[in-house]
């Protein structure tokens, strides 16, 4: 890794999350929060926020297929053995630190993308389809959006908990993209 002269990287940290991934992460967080907050009213804002959620998830899927190695979603999905070993260590209170995602965190990120994207798609179908399918999608939309919110809360709680366990600031790492090696 080369260091630009006069703009040395902060000592003892490495670049982990690329700029596109971080931008998509925080825009998805913002669009999802806006959509959730306007779910019961401000229907036009709710629809546009929902469309933005779907577009951002779409971009993240593309970036996750074509982007750099650390952004690859296929690398986020752990094998069952790897996941089981990590969850076992977590249950014993000694989860090993990972510079990238730990296996549970990577799987959860993909789950968040699927749930938030699914909430957007079912929401759109509930309006666009009409008839019995539209009504079924309306019910599905409320369930999936609720699950997505629950998954977001677990995600935030886990980020805070793992920051404390490993004595690092994972939220800042998702802003500046850097972590200690």
């Amino acid at each position, binding site marked *: 890794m080369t260091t630009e002269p006069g703009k040395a990287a902060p000592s003892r940290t490495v670049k982990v999350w690329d700029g596109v991934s971080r931008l998509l992460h925080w825009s998805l967080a913002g669009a999802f929060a806006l959509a959730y907050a306007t779910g019961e009213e401000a229907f036009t804002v709710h629809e546009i926020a929902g469309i933005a959620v779907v577009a951002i998830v779409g971009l993240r*899927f*593309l970036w996750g297929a074509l982007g750099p190695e650390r952004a690859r979603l296929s690398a986020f999905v752990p094998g069952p053995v790897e996941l089981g070993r990590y969850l076992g260590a977590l249950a014993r209170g000694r989860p090993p630190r990972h510079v990238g995602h730990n296996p549970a965190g990577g799987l959860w990120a993909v789950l968040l993308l699927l749930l938030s994207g699914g909430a957007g798609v079912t929401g759109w179908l509930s*309006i666009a389809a009409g008839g019995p399918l539209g009504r079924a999608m309306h019910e599905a939309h409320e369930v999936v959006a609720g699950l997505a919110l629950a998954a977001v809360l677990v995600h935030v709680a886990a980020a805070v908990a793992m920051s404390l366990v490993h004595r690092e600031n994972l939220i800042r790492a998702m802003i500046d993209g850097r972590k200690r090696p």
Partner: protein
Amino acid sequence: MRVLDTVFAAGGVALLVGSGVALAQQGGAAPMQDGERRADDGRGIAAADAMTLGEAVARAGALGYGPVREAEYEHGRYEIETVDATGRRVELYLDAVTGELLKIDHDD
């Protein structure tokens, strides 16, 4: 390229195309099905030919439900929280134009 990469790439393209279509339709009238009358202007406000909230509550009473705890207009339907003749809590879904009872949810 791993199989999963291909799956994510295809899903990404589909979602981007879908969101583009949705954005183009947004604000315009949603496609109507044959024989369907839509009681929604797309912004959560009942259209002119829909029942009023009061008429929807009265309709629930005529169907043998009540008293009504909460009634709400959403997507061409009234969702009415009430109790049935045995006192059990139910949620009724009434078509906002025809008053047809579309569905009964039992809140257990």
